């Protein structure tokens, strides 16, 4: 008993609290009391919204409502701790303004558009309010009678986040007002009302003069709205020459609303014929070209031929002409995706279930899934659908790659699965599509220009007729044209699976994919807010009519708008970066050495009880070392010649070439990246011509090496001694491409993706990133990627240093420019498994409590916060922070505003801290 007493006293000291407060449970219902007791009442936020917030707003953004002294709760915090601040609703987002991120050691990654505590209105899925009497109510877009006395506001976001605000401290009525504002602005009914329109028109007028050369990077991604982009695409391919042409029959979208303005068809089909034929297809979508393999098999997509149509000969004729585009006249394979892929409704249902299981309201709910998680995952079926898509894509890839003939993807509307599958096929088959720029262009071409109805599928617009729309579980609107269905998410998940299986072969990262997913909910870009190109054109025309100059839209690919340069670097997979780099060297060194880098750990790799572990590694290493050194000098000279001849040779499609030295190539994101695919566009034969054209200037041997450099940049194919690699690795029955075995050799263009459900990973980074319970500080994939990045940086740096030194040696010239400075890396103190999304709460970083993980201790923690030895972090910390370091609100709060404002962190403990500090009691009962 005496022990308990002392324990309680210590807690009291820590909390600066008179002792009598501890005993009565009811005292703590009033949050004000806590604040007073904490002695920090004076610091409560007193920001005047009109003046202070303006500086934070984007062009075109208007404040439509606000509430002061709102408490924003820490996500999933058992102790209901939170920060008080100003909650502002604008026509773009819901913004929480305070001068300090609550309980955070690390802020989320810089986003120039929204702060870590903001949420865009288009991200809001459902809104719940809680009245004083504790009644929870869901609000619908049509809800009208919102009354005073709202205690709590809970917002469920489309990205699976849950935000909770309390109006306990605010003036009566403010809560109601802001909820009304949110409700009113969150569900637009017309895309012309989208914030993007406001933003781009205002931004254009503001920034006409300040256009700089800084955004060159964005121009790399072709948008495929101009003929040039398409020409570039089909002219560069030898396999397509003369057989396919670009048609502009739908340039004004008069023929078909859901077809792109420009598209590619067999050259033998006349415009007149197409104009007639287009109406024979569902949704007015003709078969259009997507991709042609060097073996001249192509990939096309279309909608179903109209069932009621009698003009079968039209369809036949088109197919004939497509067949003729293949000189070998192989038969077309029709893939009916309606039968092979899940229906839109199934996907929507599944996604809804996924959402429910990934948005636990509290920890108990989360832990309840314990033991059921895998079967839940199975009943959700999401991964089965992902597997299904990959499987279909793989079938297509096998067909095309083995030269069996052209594949035509068919689907009722021709805008959903066709886009998904055609993209996946191209990613799997074509290495150039695995770079960030390549992938971006692909998505732009197949999804955006291909007229995937983003507005409808993502449910961006509210369709007023059916209020049931907002209950996805009862989405009875079975008609595919109005059906909400996250096909794009399935696609991104497929890309994620490819990434996990072949992490060295793709340039993008998981962060890039989630950024894309988030981009669909960021109505600043014109990329994801329209159903089709016609809609986009009309909306923009309307907008332009009111103005003298045409306004310029912003595409999501213009990442500079959203992220600073250093954040964009997180898009690039460091393993891929290094791999490219190795290859550069590996191909310029003798085969044995080149292979030893990649495979020498295989020698000692876990074989079953290998008794004959000989020091092969050493041998290989030493041979490599010497070879690199001896060859390096001559290599550097021939690299120089490559460079000069490359820059002088004409570049047929206007891409940037290797401009300085080859070593620099991989680490110049995003400009440098273009090199890969521009070189990739030309297949080995054209690469050879470059090499041959100046082989007179250097000796033959060097010329060959040069060629290897050029090609090696693109295809790892040219590894000269695949046999060595093969022997050192477990290569299973190489005859069959069974998906169960490690069938992919490094030097294989086509990815062998494994599609079995067993091999698919749950994409935690996208779906669970807001679930703080499973956050690991210093753990998870993110810190590893950080490390890999550092390693890659160092490799790049060292390599360029070598280059520099070699140049000095060869020329005897010390005036060669010094190696470029190291790329600025993101300095991060703590990286968690959900970096850069979920900020680390002080709670976890201090390691004072671990309640989030272990049931056992959580019960205890509710009582005493911590044991006597560790002081309570709550209020203490807060005091400490408000004085010391300069406050840093991550997003756009200016220092002046920060200084003007102050904030307060409220420690609200709904779980009473009363019961006799019985750690021991609880321990036994908790188990």
């Amino acid at each position, binding site marked *: 008993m005496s022990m308990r007493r002392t324990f309680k006293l210590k807690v009291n000291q820590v909390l600066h609290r008179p002792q009598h407060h501890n005993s009565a449970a009811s005292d703590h219902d009033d949050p004000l009391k806590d604040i007073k007791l904490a002695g920090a009442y004076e610091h409560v936020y007193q920001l005047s919204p009109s003046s202070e917030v303006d500086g934070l707003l984007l062009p075109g953004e208007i404040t439509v409502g606000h509430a002061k002294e709102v408490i924003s709760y820490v996500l999933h915090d058992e102790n209901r701790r939170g920060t008080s601040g100003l909650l502002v609703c604008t026509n773009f987002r819901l913004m929480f303004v305070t001068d300090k991120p609550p309980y955070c050691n690390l802020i989320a990654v810089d986003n120039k558009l929204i702060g870590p505590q903001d949420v865009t209105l288009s991200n809001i899925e459902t809104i719940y309010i809680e009245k004083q009497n504790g009644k929870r109510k869901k609000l619908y877009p049509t809800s009208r009678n919102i009354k005073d006395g709202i205690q709590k506001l809970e917002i469920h976001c489309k990205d699976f986040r849950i935000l909770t605000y309390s109006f306990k401290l605010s003036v009566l009525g403010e809560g109601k007002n802001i909820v009304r504002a949110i409700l009113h602005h969150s569900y637009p009914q017309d895309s012309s009302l989208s914030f993007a329109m406001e933003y781009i028109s205002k931004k254009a007028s503001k920034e006409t003069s300040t256009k700089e050369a800084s955004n060159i990077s964005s121009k790399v991604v072709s948008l495929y709205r101009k003929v040039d982009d398409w020409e570039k695409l089909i002219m560069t391919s030898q396999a397509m020459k003369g057989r396919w042409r670009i048609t502009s029959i739908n340039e004004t979208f008069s023929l078909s609303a859901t077809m792109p303005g420009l598209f590619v068809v067999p050259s033998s089909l006349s415009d007149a014929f197409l104009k007639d034929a287009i109406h024979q297809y569902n949704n007015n979508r003709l078969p259009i070209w997507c991709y042609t393999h060097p073996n001249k098999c192509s990939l096309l997509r279309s909608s179903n031929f109209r069932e009621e149509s009698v003009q079968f000969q039209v369809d036949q004729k088109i197919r004939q002409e497509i067949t003729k585009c293949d000189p070998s006249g192989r038969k077309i394979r029709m893939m009916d995706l309606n039968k092979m892929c899940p229906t839109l409704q199934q996907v929507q249902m599944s996604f809804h279930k996924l959402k429910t299981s990934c948005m636990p309201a509290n920890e108990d709910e989360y832990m309840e*899934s*314990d*033991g*059921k998680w*895998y079967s839940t995952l*199975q009943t959700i079926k999401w*991964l*089965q659908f992902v597997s299904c898509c990959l499987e279909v894509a793989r079938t297509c890839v096998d067909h095309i790659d083995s030269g069996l003939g052209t594949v035509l993807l068919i689907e009722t509307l021709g805008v959903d699965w066709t886009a998904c599958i055609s993209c996946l096929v191209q990613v799997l088959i074509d290495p150039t599509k695995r770079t960030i720029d390549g992938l971006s262009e692909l998505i732009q071409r197949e999804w955006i220009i291909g007229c995937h109805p983003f507005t409808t599928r993502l449910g961006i617009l509210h369709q007023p007729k059916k209020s049931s729309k907002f209950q996805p579980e009862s989405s009875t609107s079975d008609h595919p044209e109005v059906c909400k269905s996250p096909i794009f998410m399935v696609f991104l998940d497929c890309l994620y699976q490819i990434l996990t*299986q*072949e*992490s060295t072969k793709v340039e993008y990262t998981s962060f890039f994919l989630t950024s894309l997913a988030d981009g669909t909910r960021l109505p600043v870009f014109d990329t994801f807010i329209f159903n089709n190109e016609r809609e986009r054109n009309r909306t923009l025309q309307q907008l332009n009519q009111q103005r003298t100059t045409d306004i310029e839209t912003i595409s999501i690919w213009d990442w500079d708008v959203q992220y600073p340069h250093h954040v964009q670097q997180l898009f690039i997979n460091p*393993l891929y970066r*290094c791999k490219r780099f190795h290859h550069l060297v590996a191909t310029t060194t003798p085969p044995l050495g080149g292979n030893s*880098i990649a495979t*020498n*750990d295989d020698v*000692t790799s*876990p074989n*079953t009880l290998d*008794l004959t*572990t*000989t*020091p092969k*590694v*050493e041998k290989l290493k030493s041979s490599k*070392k010497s070879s690199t050194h001896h060859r390096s000098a001559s290599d550097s000279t021939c690299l120089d010649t490559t460079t000069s001849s490359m820059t002088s040779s004409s570049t047929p499609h206007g891409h940037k070439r290797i401009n300085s030295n080859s070593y620099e190539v991989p680490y110049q994101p995003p400009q440098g990246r273009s090199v890969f695919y521009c070189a990739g566009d030309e297949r080995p034969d054209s690469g050879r011509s470059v090499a041959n054209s100046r082989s007179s200037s250097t000796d033959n041997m060097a010329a060959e090496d040069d060629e290897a450099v050029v090609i090696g940049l693109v295809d790892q194919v040219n590894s000269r001694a695949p046999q060595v690699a093969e*022997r050192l690795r477990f290569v299973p*029955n190489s005859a069959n491409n069974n998906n169960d075995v*490690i069938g992919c050799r490094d030097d294989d263009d086509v990815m062998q993706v494994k599609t*079995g*459900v067993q*091999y698919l990973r749950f994409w*935690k980074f996208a779906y669970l990133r807001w679930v703080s319970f*499973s956050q*690991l500080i*210093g*753990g998870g*994939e993110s*810190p*590893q990627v950080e490390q*890999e990045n550092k*390693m890659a940086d160092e*490799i790049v740096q*060292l390599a360029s*240093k*070598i280059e520099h*030194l*070699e140049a000095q040696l060869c020329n*005897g010239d010390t005036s060669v420019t010094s190696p470029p400075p190291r790329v600025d890396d993101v300095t991060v103190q703590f990286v968690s*498994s959900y970096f850069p999304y979920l900020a680390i709460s002080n709670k976890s970083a201090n*390691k004072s409590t671990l309640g989030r*993980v*272990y049931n*056992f*201790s959580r019960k205890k923690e509710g009582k005493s916060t*911590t044991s006597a030895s*560790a002081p309570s972090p709550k209020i203490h910390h807060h005091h400490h922070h408000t004085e010391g370091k300069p406050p840093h609100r991550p997003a756009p709060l200016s220092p002046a505003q920060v200084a003007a404002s102050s904030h307060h962190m409220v420690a609200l403990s709904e779980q009473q801290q009363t019961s006799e500090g019985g750690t*021991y009691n609880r*321990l*036994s009962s908790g188990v």
Partner: protein
Amino acid sequence: MWAMFKQSLDELTSTTPKKEDPVKAQLLLMQLVSAETLGTTPKVEEAFLEGSCISKMIGSACLTGHHLILYSHSGDNAEHWILHKNVDAIDRRFGNDKCQITLKCKDFETYCLTVLSQEDATNIANSIEVLSSLDNINLQYPFFYKATNSLSESNLGSIEEDFLMISNVSDQWRISEVNNNFQICPTYPQRIIVPKSISDQMIFKSSEFRNLGRFPILSYCHHNGRVVMRCSQPQIGTNNRRCKEDEKLINVVLGSHHRGYIMDTRTQQIALQARSKGGGTETEFNYPQWKKIHHNLSRPSALYDSICKLVEVSRDKGCAVDKWRSRLESSNWLHHVKEVLTASCLVSQCLDKEGASVLIHCADGFDSTLQITSLTQIILNPECRTLRGFLNLVEKEWILYGHPFRERCARSVYSVGKASRDEGPTFLLFLDCVHQLQHQYPLSFEFDGSLLCQIARHTYASQFGTFLCNNELERFTSRVRSKTTSLWSHLLSDDVFPSYLNPVYQPRSDTIWPSVAPQSLMLWGELFTPFVDPSAVTRRCLRSNKLYLHELRSTINELSKEVSQLEEQEEKLKT
């Protein structure tokens, strides 16, 4: 004929290995085996070997005393060796034109050997069957194996080193010789660390009170001076025995002001039931300074059932798409992982946050107890996350303190017939938990996942003597330590350990708190589904990057030297 064979084997074991050198013994064994069982088939010229992790091999199969060896005919001199000891079950499928023998191994791999003659096939299968179930320890392969590469002096589990570490934190301990010649506890090492103020006599009394003589003994001393101790259940029995010395022994660890926890890894009910068999659990009345926690962890036999199901699922490539995950779940393996991790976190929390000492025991004190003590150390002590530290931990907790490897790992998932109570993958579960930690904190471990896999394989069949025998007494009598090579010295040798290093290792000094949510736990792909695990590719790439970095650095050094030489020459020319 079998009887004859057995008899001659017995003769062999009783005479040869003690006096003659291993090579001769092996020759003898081979002669005997080939004479009696192989008949005319020590070698088959034409055989095919297929396996889930190897490429198809065509060549000649050869049977030796300990291995089935397949030499490839394809000119690349490939060989594949399968240790007989590794074979868990044999399936025979004899057709008219070819005969297939499926070897199901203890490391979950399966191999399929195809030969043409039925006679050969029968002979081979019979021989392997006999040779794989040789019980006699002196005939085990480790006694014949001679390491070809240079080994490092491992010196793991040294008590002096341990004692030195502890003395830095607390001066309350001493090294005792009370267990010399394994007098009081056969499953403890001969020299042990005990509290200074406790006499050997008291320890003797305490060991009489505890099951199998496993009295409370120090496992880990945290930097705040709190300790983890382990023991077996007290033999309270039906007449409520108590032992003052035992109480004193553990109370003295607490000091005057502290309290501690006793974690019993059985449910309260089971623990109380154990009294009828002479066991039991500490009563609060007799141990007032200690708080009891019951955290139910499964017995080895339950784990055995679980892993059988798990392997069945994970190796079933034809499993229906919509069934796989629920089958995985119903194997319950990840549930066991979760429970063990949770218990270990609990203990770590008591130690690190509460500042309380913990005493852990199950019934015998060498199964789940060891899982928890060792995982706690990995969570709390950064030293245990280094390669050497980890091996030291395994040696110290599992080998020296008597985890019965011989019994637990006698058979694996494929063997037919019900497992006895003594069999179960306790140690494998521990390794899986380490794998989970490693997966959650990829930077914090100096070694990588392949080390864990390798250790897991060696527990079932190995050329090294590390995992032979049940306890130190058995090892002592069979002279395992002097006659066999240690796995640790192999793993730590200069040409082996670099391949197990984690290329992104970043030492961190603090604790790593794992997440035990089901969403955070992963199936151990590298062990259970190695044919699909992508982590190997990533690791290979990372490692090659690391190598490449080294190379670059050395190239830079050489080049800068050259440059400076050139500059010097220029200087000279100018002057």
